[in-house]
């Protein structure tokens, strides 16, 4: 008997599958995680209802989710846009941190009313992060140096630069804690209609819109799509790979910078040396899941915010170890990525009788 696995590409993906897969896979991931929960003598149903149902029904949970979604969506875009041009921005984390530092510096050193200061902080953050991203883009466009490596390594440079700046020149406030001084009130992103959500969420939404319009409507978007699909044909058609590579990285970097400053000025209030949120790495998964459109990046970002916030409340409410929530989150991601495969391929598994007459030649040892 042989186990026969037949994989065939689907010609058409039926609609129920397109919308159904994410739901099925999340349920499957939760079912697997339930084993671990039962082993810890926690009721999976209770745990999941805390993680999901309570988070999306409780105003506080919603607010937390939205706040968490802001940097995730922005860094998601920072990976997504270069991906459209066929490039991998693995260094959104470093760009986020540089943006946070530059924005914080502006907020601490410039005295302006909030309506002028905040845009200036976002501008500073975007510029610094865009510069950080432009370096790998330039190296890639000019010398064909692999951007995956350069963006990743520049992240470590950014982290150490941050450690130096926050412990050194930018250190401030009371005592000698490794942190900057507290941002003045004018440099804090205001709350949106007393919902508990800071206005950074608007920035994220606008940037999703900007990305969508750029890719779907403009000549630049057309060029980005073309270069991403076949840069040699694009060059032949008179498009500039150089321009497109720089543009997507500069814009992507700017998005990551905005994520950094919105997190500092919207939530933290000051830059601490320990600020390494990891959003820039989660963003890679978000961009992959949302790679079919800017709106999908938004959805993926919201979903990741939900499982992060839900995971935390599950830890608090039921005393589940933090490690286990991370396992659950990781399983959901794994299942979702695997599901992409099943969406595009039909796999049939069956047992069939072994008709082959050449087992000896296959093993060789019995000869």
């Amino acid at each position, binding site marked *: 008997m042989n186990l026969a696995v037949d994989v065939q590409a689907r010609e*058409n993906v039926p609609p129920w599958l397109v919308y159904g897969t994410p739901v099925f896979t999340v349920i499957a991931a939760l079912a697997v995680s339930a084993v671990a929960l039962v082993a810890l003598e926690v009721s999976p149903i209770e745990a999941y209802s805390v993680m999901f149902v309570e988070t999306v029904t409780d105003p506080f949970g919603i607010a937390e989710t939205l706040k968490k979604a802001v940097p995730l969506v922005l860094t998601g875009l920072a990976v997504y846009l270069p991906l459209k041009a066929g490039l991998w921005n693995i260094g959104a984390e470093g760009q986020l941190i540089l943006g946070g530092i530059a924005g914080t510096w502006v907020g601490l050193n410039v005295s302006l009313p909030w309506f002028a200061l905040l845009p200036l902080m976002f501008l500073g953050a975007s510029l610094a992060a865009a510069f950080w991203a432009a370096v790998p883009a330039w190296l890639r466009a000019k010398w064909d140096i692999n951007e995956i490596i350069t963006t990743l390594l520049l992240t470590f440079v950014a982290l150490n630069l941050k450690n130096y700046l926050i412990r050194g020149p930018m250190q401030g406030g009371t005592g000698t804690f490794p942190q900057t001084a507290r941002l003045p009130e004018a440099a804090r992103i205001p709350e949106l209609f007393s919902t508990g959500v800071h206005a950074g969420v608007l920035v994220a939404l606008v940037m999703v819109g900007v990305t969508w319009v750029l890719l779907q*409507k403009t000549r630049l978007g057309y060029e980005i799509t*073309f270069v991403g699909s*076949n840069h040699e*044909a*694009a*060059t032949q*058609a008179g498009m500039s790979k150089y321009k497109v590579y720089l543009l997507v990285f500069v814009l992507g970097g700017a998005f990551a910078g905005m994520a950094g400053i919105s997190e500092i000025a919207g939530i933290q209030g000051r830059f601490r040396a320990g600020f390494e949120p990891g959003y820039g790495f989660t963003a890679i998964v978000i961009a992959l899941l949302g790679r079919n459109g800017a709106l999908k990046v938004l959805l993926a970002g919201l979903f990741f915010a939900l499982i992060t916030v839900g995971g935390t409340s599950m830890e608090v409410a039921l005393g589940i170890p933090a490690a286990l929530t991370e396992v659950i989150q990781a399983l959901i991601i794994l299942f979702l990525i695997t599901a992409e495969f099943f969406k595009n391929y039909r796999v049939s598994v069956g047992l069939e009788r072994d008709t082959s007459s050449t087992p000896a030649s296959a093993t060789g040892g019995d000869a």
Partner: protein
Amino acid sequence: MTEAPFLRMEEIHKEFPGVVANDRVDFSVRRGEIHGLLGENGAGKSTLMKILYGLYSPDGGDIWLDGTRLDLESPQDAIDAGIGMVHQHFMLIPRLSVTENVVLGEREPAGRFRTSMGSLLDGLVSRFSLGLEEPADRIRDLAGQYGFDVDPTAKIWQLDVGQQQRVEILKALYRDVDLLILDEPTAVLTPNEAERLFESLERLAEEGIAIIFITHKLKEIDAITDRVTVLREGAKVGTVDTADVTREDLAEMMVGREVLFDLEKDPVEIGDPVLQARGLRARDQRDIEVLAGVDLTVRAGEVVGIAGVSGNGQKQLAELVAGLGDPTDGTIELMGTDLTGASPREFVDHDVSFVPEDRLRYGCAADLSVMHNATMKDFRQARFGANRPFLDYGELREYAETLVEEFDVRGVQDVRAVTAGDLSGGNLQKLILAREIYRDPDLLVANQPTRGVDVGAIEFIRESILEQRERGTGVVLISEDLDEIVDLSDRILVIYEGEFVHETTPEEADRERVGLAMTGGEAAATDGGRDPIDAGRAATDGGGAADRGADGR
């Protein structure tokens, strides 16, 4: 039909989602016969052969070889049954020797381990040891038997394309095949190499090996096959004895309508030069000089055909005059404007069109829609919203639909949904040509525009090029197909090792001489008796190139 067929494929049926690739096809081959399998791209030739070679499993039908019913699940089953296939793209490892390539995948222990070991050790030995002496001897014998000049110890990268192909055939012969499938074997060969291949195949057939020869070139069917089976749109049209039919008959069977072989070429008034390239030099990636100072002048309404064996600098010449890459030396002028060193974009904006040799790599983005591919050079134009902030996708779509309609690109239901990669070779080429021609260029550079394209599409593409010539476009036509060059060109240049070594006109072209010049066999010298226009032109460019060619020898 006195003799029982060696191979019988009965009612072979294969469907892919949405397409019937083989519609109950019957196919049989006799021992010692060279059997042509003819059809346009997408007619189902490859599918049928992939079923025979175990790469696809049929939805219905039976395969009988020498009276035994075959149930092929993989190429290994096919090889075990005695079926060998030489693919169009060679499956060889350049760094390994001929012998290593031939025995690759075979388990044969080294001679000195062969006799005395116990069964377990034998297994290990056969798995891990590599004895190359005996295989090398056998390859040498086989090569001698069929008249192949292949040294078993040579590395693949040292061999030319024709020899590499013979290694592929040896690979099959080494496995004792009785039936050999050749998938468009001449696509990569020069005319002389093809000639040699035919001789070898005839030897093989005499030895009793059945050969299936897949092609869409009618000339080759004439030249080598005993019988031919024609497929069209997945169905078998018929099997005929080659001797009984004319080329025209076969073409009609293949395309389903009458095909014109003689193109009407109306005289066109030749205008001012659109392209003037002087002293072009270029190097390839390995820093070897591939263009050694080439002058090329193309006038409005003139087709300049560049004949030559692939790899003699045509590719670089085409790319340079189309604006891709910069020459190491020399100048390029278009309509009097010096564009040396300008970006590809400037060449596009100066109405230069380019049909690249490698369609999938340079000609299109296979994953993007037909709409994207149809508009990739023109999307900046005013009609698509150049003065407005957004690109007018509605207009892009209409433009793409116009191209698809006018150039008869088939298989496109929705220009936004069908991707360029979904199209067959001929239809993709028509789409690319449509894009390049519809913008009414001043200069059209076409590198191998009909290679790998079916007869119907070839006819259409050639007519389109001639039509464009009548509209006053200067055309650079690069081709390895001498017939094509002679049929379409007003002037013929032969390129060899980066230089023009021979110049002639279609009326005066001596095929043998051109063929010889292509392979570097003759110092170039143009004969007299030209009309005054040609003579004058030769003085400006071609003559100079020919002189240098002669000097270099």
